[in-house]
């Protein structure tokens, strides 16, 4: 699907029509290589090795710790073991926010998101599953699993952990999360060299992939809309408190949203996931182009990133209550995101000559 299978590239039939003519009329430098000397590959290597891959490693570690906590609780159902499992769930959920933004290539091919964080969770489906059979790979089950599904099992009064079907279901959900994470990590072993060598800024380049997945659709769909706009009722005029992330534990919505935002910010600043040291970054490239073009987009983006962060930090922990009592606070964050989306989509993508192709033009 979205994999970069460059070595397999052989366009039978079409190549005989198109390629020979182009070899004559066109040089090796197509429009995918803007005429500047900025070292984009160094940026991609930094993002890959110091942000993407460590975030998946950490997620894997946290999921395994949740597994241990589950085993311990199943062996001995004490309140403290339950609390430890809840704590392990939260740690893993937070680490997912560091990994969620790399939703392309191996993660997309594996369908990692479908195992992790589709919400609001379908509690009727979960209750039905506890009494019967289920295939967690079916699309109707995607909103009955992942961190939101586990949250329901851990925090809802409707769940009775003395019923062994609950721990079995928890285990099945966790197993799918672990399997998809392992597949993603394993696929990155081969995808890494394709990705860091996909130079230029066109659709298939690493820069193009980052803009057309992480920097824009992820930001818009999974942050601006899912965490703020939908529960705030930004587009419908009707707040939907039951659609917040972290519905059943109630106090974690802000921590999850802030963690996701900080990971997103590091994707621009190139700050290491591991030790938060600075590295070659996309923002450096924006600055580089600013100097060539006489623009100040780098400072503008940093200022807008600050605005979003401040807006999130100003919220209470419990988004469910906010959506009930003062949804405008959520919509204010949405608005701060929206300003930044506009800057990225129009000005920065243009300055960097990145092709924005994710917009659905199907029209029917």
């Amino acid at each position: 699907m979205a994999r970069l299978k460059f070595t397999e590239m052989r366009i039978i039939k079409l190549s005989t029509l198109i390629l020979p003519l182009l070899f004559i009329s066109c040089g090796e430098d197509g429009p995918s290589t803007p005429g500047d000397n900025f070292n984009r590959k160094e940026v991609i290597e930094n993002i890959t090795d110091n942000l993407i891959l460590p975030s998946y490693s950490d997620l894997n570690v946290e999921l395994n710790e949740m597994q241990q906590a589950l085993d311990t609780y199943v062996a001995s159902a004490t309140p403290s073991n339950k609390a430890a499992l809840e704590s392990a769930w939260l740690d893993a959920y937070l680490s997912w926010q560091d990994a969620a933004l790399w939703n392309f290539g191996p993660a997309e091919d594996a369908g990692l998101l479908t195992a992790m964080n589709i919400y609001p969770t379908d509690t009727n489906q979960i209750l039905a599953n506890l009494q019967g059979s289920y295939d967690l790979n079916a699309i109707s089950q995607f909103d009955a699993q992942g961190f939101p599904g586990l949250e329901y099992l851990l925090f809802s009064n409707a769940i009775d952990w003395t019923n062994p079907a609950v721990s079995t279901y928890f285990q099945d959900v966790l197993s799918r999360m672990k399997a998809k994470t392992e597949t993603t990590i394993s696929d990155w072993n081969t995808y890494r060299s394709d990705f860091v060598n996909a130079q230029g800024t066109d659709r298939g380049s690493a820069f193009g992939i980052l803009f057309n997945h992480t920097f824009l659709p992820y930001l818009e769909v999974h942050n601006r809309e899912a965490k703020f706009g939908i529960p705030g009722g930004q587009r419908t005029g009707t707040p939907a408190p039951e659609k917040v992330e972290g519905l059943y534990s109630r106090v974690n919505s802000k921590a999850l949203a802030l963690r996701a935002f900080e990971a997103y910010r590091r994707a621009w600043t190139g700050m290491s996931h591991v030790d938060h040291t600075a590295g070659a970054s996309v923002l450096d490239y924006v600055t580089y182009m600013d100097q060539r073009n006489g623009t100040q987009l780098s400072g503008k983006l940093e200022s807008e990133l600050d605005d979003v962060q401040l807006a999130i930090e100003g919220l209470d922990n419990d988004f469910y209550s906010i959506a009930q009592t003062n949804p405008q606070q959520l919509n204010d964050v949405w608005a701060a995101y929206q300003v930044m989306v506009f800057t990225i989509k129009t000005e920065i993508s243009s300055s960097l000559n990145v092709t924005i192709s994710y917009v659905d033009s199907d029209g029917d």
Partner: protein
Amino acid sequence: MRYTLSILAIAGLAACSPEEPNEPALSVPSTYEFTRNNESTVAYGGQIDRQAMMAELSTTMKGGVDNALDYDMLVDMYENQNNPFADADLNTSGKSLSSKTSASPTHTFDQGATINYFKGWMQAAVTASENPATAADGVAGVISNSDNSKRYLVDERGVEYVQVIEKGLMGAIFMDQMVNNYLTPAKLDVENDATNADPYTSMEHHWDEAYGYFTLVQDLNLDPSVSQERGYWGRYIVGLENNFGLASDMYYAFRKGRAAIVAKDYDSRDEVISTITDGMEQTTYLKALGYLNKGATALNSGEAAVAFHALSEGVGFIYSLRYIASEKVTAAQSDAWIETLIQGNGFWSGDIQTRIETVKTAIGNTFNLSEAIVDGSH
């Protein structure tokens, strides 16, 4: 190999387009405009009418997410009976979609069964629209995305009725008529006498009728970002222009063939036919694969509405593969691929990704395609 990608990417840029070779004896115009005695000799009104009928039929069926559909009305639109169209000129056109469904000499043996196949989808859509439920595994109804901006009427397996009908009829009518009727000797080895009563010769007119199913416009714009009413196939073919250059090749072939007919240069006419028929074949399998890939990606994002819509379009194009001129895909093979995708719980099944991969691989093997083409990573 980034090199190869950029080569493909620039294939659509003017500076790098293949030069159109000029036959010394044949003057090929830059648009599909041909005149004699200061009068246009180009006419394909029947093709414009049938695509307009299809548009009204599709629009009506898409209304099934909000209103109960009327089966008699849909059949009337399919058969052009009882003045069903808002555009009154269509009602009196004497044309219909059904009479040209699977109607080429190659496929007419299957015409009745094919018409019933599409009527069957219409009847199923009507039933689903009468008591619209929220679509679910095993339940026909309306499926929506999270913000309700996309809503589709689907069957109990997730198949969107109107997409199978629309994309299927694109093959069964428009492509079949083009490649298996008008561009065959039976329609081209005919009278080519400019002194007859019409502004055009019979041969010119048949060529134009094929062209009218390729695109609705005589000045085809090859830039997909420029809006133009290109017609059902034209829109998709131009959409593939930047990566595959099919639209420029086919547009040139149609213009050259038409000029050759005027010049009575029948060798030149016959030379370009395979460019057109191959282009239709490539467009059909590229769209089938493209929609399967789009659907698979959307499934992996948990976007059921987007996924089912795309997969249903893929099913329609897979249906249309039986109408390609090369006959590389039999009706039985096309049916088997569709069955692989929609059997059992269909798109709701947990193994749907595996079944998508199976069909993609089979299509790739049938047309000897690279993995990059099959996976859409080209």
